């Protein structure tokens, strides 16, 4: 709502398109492409913007079709991360450490080939899947194919431990060796409650004088967009 208010009140600040905005700022040689050298805000941001992965930012990266493809890719990424976090943990706590996952893979590697077969995955899953997931048979049938699609780089219908480690690393955006639920995704900060404090809870600190001691204080959280 804050953003909507802004759009209605400040039309002068609205750039026509994302490409117009970026090209005006970064396309120094005006060749219709923004190269790595021209872009100054880091390789991670460049990679997010380079939706077609051709190594340059162009208008094609900002079409509706490119946005849909990026959204679908992000959805698949979240689903794969959820699969890892619910199927490979040792202790039924949703956090998943890289070493923890590799220990689980080794424990269920019955033929000791450093790869996970579907049968080994089923044995592993029968221990770790929660009851609700065990009964969701239709969705369960898709889990192994989805993991293969995400990680089986050599297409041999086995998930080498190295392939799963590589998948883990792709999901581990902050490279700290841990996958954690989204609400705790920012390293080093934990929310007491995933949906924030409830009425009656102490308000989490916001610095000195964040609220008055003699009357109520309204906190309005928001951003531009």
């Amino acid at each position, binding site marked *: *709502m*804050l*953003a*909507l*208010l*802004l*759009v209605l*009140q*400040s039309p002068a*600040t*609205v*750039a*026509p398109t*994302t490409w*117009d*905005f970026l090209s005006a700022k970064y396309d120094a040689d005006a060749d219709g492409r923004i190269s790595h050298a021209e872009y100054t*805000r*880091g390789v991670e*941001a460049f990679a*997010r*913007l380079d939706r077609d992965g051709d190594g340059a930012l162009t208008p094609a990266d900002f079409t509706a079709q490119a*946005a849909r493809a*990026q959204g679908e890719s*992000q959805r698949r990424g979240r689903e794969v991360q959820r699969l890892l976090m619910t199927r490979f943990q040792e202790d039924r706590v949703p956090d998943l450490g890289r070493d923890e996952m590799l220990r689980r893979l080794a424990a269920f590697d019955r033929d000791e080939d450093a790869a996970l077969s579907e049968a080994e995955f089923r044995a592993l899953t029968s221990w770790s899947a929660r009851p609700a997931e065990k009964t969701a048979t239709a969705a369960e049938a898709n889990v192994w194919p989805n993991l293969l699609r995400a990680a089986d780089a050599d297409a041999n219908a086995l998930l080498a431990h190295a392939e799963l480690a590589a998948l883990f690393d792709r999901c581990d955006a902050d490279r700290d060796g841990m996958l954690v639920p989204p*609400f*705790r995704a*920012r*390293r*080093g*900060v934990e*929310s*007491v*409650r*995933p*949906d*924030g*404090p*409830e*009425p009656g*809870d*102490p*308000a*989490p600190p*916001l*610095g000195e004088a*964040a*609220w*008055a*001691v003699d*009357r*109520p*204080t*309204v*906190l*309005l*959280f*928001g*951003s*531009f*967009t």
Partner: protein
Amino acid sequence: MHQNYGALAEFRLIYLREAHAVDGDSPPRAAGAPCVEDPVTLEERTALAQRFAHESDLAAIPLLVDGMDDAAGIAYAAAPDRLYLIGAAGRVLWKSGKGPAGFDPAGLEAAIRTALGL
């Protein structure tokens, strides 16, 4: 609401990480949406927060800027936008849902009036 209740309650505007920065994880989808880059330093974030407050006609409200670790946004589960009412004892009296769907100014006003005994 600030004009109506500003003499009886405190107001704080807390600027969070951009929800739909063009270079963020969730870029803007709607045509004509503002083009804003995700600040990479606290100085950038503070400058954008001040622009946000000014252009949103909220400059009269004291502004706080969340740190680059997003500690406040996470602790309050406040992204993309959210309202809280904190009592004099430092405890939560009321909170809205997460915006934009949960943003609830009418609920906030009712909670303020209840807290003030109006």
